[in-house]
């Protein structure tokens, strides 16, 4: 696969190294010439010194024949312009970009650009670790706004119905494992002690779920 990556920082260089090791044809662009020092010894991809929003450099990088494009520079404006150019002008089938400033997230969304944003994800994750040590998410979705959490049903909740744990917009019971068998519950399904339950929870509602499970809630 031919891949063009804008930005040879920590993320761009690590991604390039992995793709190249897997046999992909990788070309990086970065306005800082010394950025190529982050690439591993023996790296067989190409490094082009210059801006990722320059049309002539993108063409030199082979964007017209690229199958994938990743805009990972530390500037949202460069990433947005490069990613939109790659998708709309050069018709690159797979385009991803990095969101740097969460305040600019709506611009990516308005343009329909797939963005991976680490700041909000990291904030949500660290916030979660600081406040909710007992409920570990198995999976997080989006930028960490919602997550999948699994927990055993405590004895005092036995006999309650699934619908009593569902809180619209906050907490949804999506799966119950009982005696090695998993099922998608109905609202009327009855909980039993030691059921292992999967919840999808809004990150702001983890405390509420924890208080349900700890018996400190209602």
């Amino acid at each position: 696969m031919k891949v063009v990556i804008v930005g040879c920082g920590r993320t761009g260089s690590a991604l390039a190294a992995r793709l190249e090791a897997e046999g992909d044809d990788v070309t990086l662009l970065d306005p800082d010439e010394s950025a190529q020092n982050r690439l591993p010894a023996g790296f067989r991809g190409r490094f082009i010194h210059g801006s990722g929003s320059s049309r002539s450099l993108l063409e030199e990088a082979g964007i017209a024949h690229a199958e994938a494009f990743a805009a990972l520079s530390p500037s949202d404006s460069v990433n947005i312009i490069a990613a939109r150019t790659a998708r709309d002008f050069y018709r690159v089938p797979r385009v991803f970009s990095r969101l740097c400033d969460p305040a600019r997230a709506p611009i990516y969304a308005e343009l329909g650009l797939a963005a991976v944003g680490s700041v909000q994800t990291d904030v949500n994750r660290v916030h979660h670790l600081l406040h909710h040590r007992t409920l570990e998410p198995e999976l997080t979705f989006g930028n960490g706004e919602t997550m999948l959490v699994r927990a055993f049903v405590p004895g005092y909740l036995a006999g309650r119905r699934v619908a009593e744990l569902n809180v619209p917009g906050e907490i949804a019971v999506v799966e119950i494992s009982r005696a090695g068998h998993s099922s998608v519950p109905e609202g009327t399904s009855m909980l039993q002690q030691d059921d292992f339950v999967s919840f999808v929870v809004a990150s702001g509602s983890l405390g509420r779920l924890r208080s349900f499970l700890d018996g400190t809630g209602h």
Partner: protein
Amino acid sequence: MRIIVAGGGTIGRQAAQRLSADGHHVTIIELSAARALSLRQLGLSAVRGDAAVLPALEAAGALRADVLAVCTGTDEENLLISFVSKRHFAIGRVIALVNDPENAWLFDQSWGVDAALSPTAALLGLIGSA
């Protein structure tokens, strides 16, 4: 007219001073707090903020603006500011500065730009090497 100038560098500042002197209502959006302060000391109206996000544009009066002149020193920022202001505030005329003539092809309606101005391209034209 109600005019917003995004970017209070040399071009933005001088345009704002001239337009204010001509009786227009001009507000500058400037990212640097120090520069915004020095613009205010010149008697200009300046909002400190990122002109590519809605709060700064709203604070500068984007809902009622007739013209937006986008004059930062970075082409990518100029395109983003043009896009956001055209899309959210439907400003009638968005004029954007092209810093690097190689980027001129990007400055069109797809980024919300009604008119692009490229001093370097103009200079090259006058020298006769465009």
